[in-house]
């Protein structure tokens, strides 16, 4: 049965089906379950009501990221509800024997769930990986099947280490061409979503292929897979290659010695076979991309940074026209206006999309020896404690602090704005995160999504700036 050419997705799917009854979803085995404080309390409570414990604590890892403050961790958590949620995570982890990277335990490895999974070597090619968070798609950069689940499904995985899943369709997302200087992985994914829309991937798993993808580092690949969900796809995958294996080697939970050799031999069988068929195919020329920025209230409302805001009167479809009018009204933007030079109040460099060491190096490259525009708030929030230490070893924090930016503790911070890091009503932010929905970064706040380079350039000028004008 396995002689038929198969895609990367099909190989992983087939290897994890525990049972498949007619007219029913597959019972899919989950290799790695990542847990955080916000989407898990009700799941653990459900487990408790059933009189059950976590079936495989050895395959379950928890962190505190969504609600955790990013100021000094020695200070008490003043938000009563956030504190209670964090204490419940601590209690649930302790009662079930789950490793928790938090405040009291594992603080040296705490961080955003999609940053720490890969950096600890927990994320490995060929795995099925779930988390109660839609950006679990990030882990697909390693040739794993990673996808977000709801809290009922979190409870299911805690109880059974399995999920009931209908097999999704596959879409080949071919990215060819070579990026021009100053254009980044973030611009690839923002360009893709601007071209195909936020619903294009519904019902599909993306596999990113093509020469542009092959040339990317692991951290750039994670940025792209991370935002698959913004294109409507629960999972985005990239076939593992030597770039993947080199990045993984030696990490804490990566296989060692003979186990590594055996794993590597298996991982090399995972890439999509010649002649395998996808259910759909889309493409993008990376060589034609400019740095991208969003102007609207969903991640598909994006354009080249040198462009002009679209005019609703030029949109034929009534629903699209209404959506654009609503978005521009919320954003306080006029049709046909350029975004270059538009003032911003806050710059946020962080999130599971762009808070890894390479992102911070990119931002520091621009900020070195320069000052943040007076009156502007610039937050740099590393993705994990390990990223923070690495940045400090390289002196990046000194560059940020000398420029006048804030250097904070790791967490989701202003990407989801539920820990006190948030915009005031009406403020504009340029943000390296993944969502520009109304109120996403604080009620009434207005978000421009862009790359770390664009964010850092705009931090210097206080207005939306094309980083290429500042790069030497």
């Amino acid at each position, binding site marked *: 049965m396995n002689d038929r050419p198969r895609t990367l997705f099909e190989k992983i799917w087939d290897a994890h089906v525990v049972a498949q009854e007619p007219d*029913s979803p597959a019972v899919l085995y989950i290799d790695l379950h990542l847990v955080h404080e916000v989407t898990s309390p*009700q799941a653990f409570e459900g487990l408790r009501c059933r009189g059950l414990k976590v079936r495989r604590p050895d395959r379950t890892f928890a962190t505190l990221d969504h609600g955790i403050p990013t100021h000094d961790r020695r200070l008490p958590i003043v*938000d009563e509800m956030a504190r209670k949620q964090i204490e419940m995570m601590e209690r649930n982890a302790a009662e079930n024997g789950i490793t928790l990277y938090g405040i009291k335990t594992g603080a040296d490895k705490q961080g955003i769930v999609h940053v720490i999974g890969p950096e600890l070597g927990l994320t490995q090619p060929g795995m099925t990986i779930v988390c109660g*968070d839609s950006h679990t798609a990030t882990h697909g950069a390693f040739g794993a099947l990673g996808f977000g*689940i709801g809290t009922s499904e979190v409870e299911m995985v805690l109880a*059974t280490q399995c999920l*009931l899943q209908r097999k999704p369709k596959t879409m080949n997302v071919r990215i060819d061409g070579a990026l021009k200087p100053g254009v980044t992985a973030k611009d690839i994914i923002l360009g893709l979503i601007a071209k195909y829309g*936020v619903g294009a991937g*519904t019902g599909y798993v993306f596999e990113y292929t093509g020469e542009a993808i092959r040339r990317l580092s692991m951290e750039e690949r994670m940025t792209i897979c991370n935002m698959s969900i913004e294109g409507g796809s629960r999972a985005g995958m990239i076939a593992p290659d030597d770039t993947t294996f080199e990045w993984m080697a030696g990490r804490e939970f990566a296989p060692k010695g003979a186990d590594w050799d055996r794993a590597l031999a298996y991982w090399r069988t995972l890439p999509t076979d010649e002649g395998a068929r996808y259910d759909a195919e889309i493409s993008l020329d990376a060589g034609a991309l400019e740095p991208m920025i969003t102007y609207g209230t969903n991640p598909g409302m994006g354009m080249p940074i040198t462009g002009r805001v679209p005019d609703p009167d030029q949109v034929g479809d009534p629903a699209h026209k209404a959506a654009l009018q609503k978005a521009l009204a919320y954003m306080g933007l006029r049709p046909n206006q350029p975004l270059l030079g538009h003032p911003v109040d806050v710059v946020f460099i962080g999130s599971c999309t762009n808070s890894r060491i390479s992102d911070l190096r990119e931002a520091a490259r621009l900020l070195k020896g320069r000052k943040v525009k007076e009156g502007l708030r610039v937050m740099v929030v590393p993705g994990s404690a390990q990223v923070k230490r690495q940045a400090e070893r390289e002196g990046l924090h000194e560059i940020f602090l000398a420029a006048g930016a804030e250097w904070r503790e790791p967490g989701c911070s202003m990407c*989801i704005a539920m820990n006190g890091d948030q915009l005031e009503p009406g403020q504009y932010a340029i943000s390296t995160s993944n969502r520009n929905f109304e109120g996403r970064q604080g009620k009434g706040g207005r978000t421009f999504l862009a790359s770390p380079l664009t964010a850092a350039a705009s931090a210097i000028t206080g207005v939306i700036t094309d980083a290429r004008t500042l790069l030497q």
Partner: protein
Amino acid sequence: MTCFTTLTSKIVPLPVDNVDTDQIIPARFLKVTDKAGLGDNLFADWRYDAEGNPKPDFVLNRPEMKGRQVLLVGDNFGCGSSREHAPWALTGYGFRAVISTSFADIFRNNALKNRLLPVIVDKPTHQQLFSLCEEAPDFEVTIDLAAQTLTLPDGRAVGFPIDAFSKACLLNGVDEIGYVLRMTDQILAFEAAHHK
């Protein structure tokens, strides 16, 4: 567990495409550790002003909308975050079905697990429903899950898709976790054979 069989209700129309789960329930309400009370904050930032007073022009705040159990929305409803708080807020408010042309995958799964029925209709039916909401806003529709039909005021019954398993779970109140827990022997066998 309660079952879903048929439902007859008037409709709350919300003609917005790509409604994301941050709109359905903003993140600041996710600090709860149970599922109760989220209905009060359903669509909070569209529904209440800065002082927390209901905005009279938002559809849920119109007096005649009270008690309606079917929500009619634009394409790709429920995109964005995986928060199950979205269907908890919708059912907490009193909705039992949402009609659209398409739903985001994670939201759709989460809805089904909370006995909130996602009803997918074709574009012409979708437009007809929104037109009816303008012309005769107090009409009723009937959703029959067993027959997989949505019956319009003119008597036309429109079919909608749902996979057989989800349908059976909703009709019979099946506990999905209990269903998988009964497969423990198969899971153990799989784990023994799994390469790692």
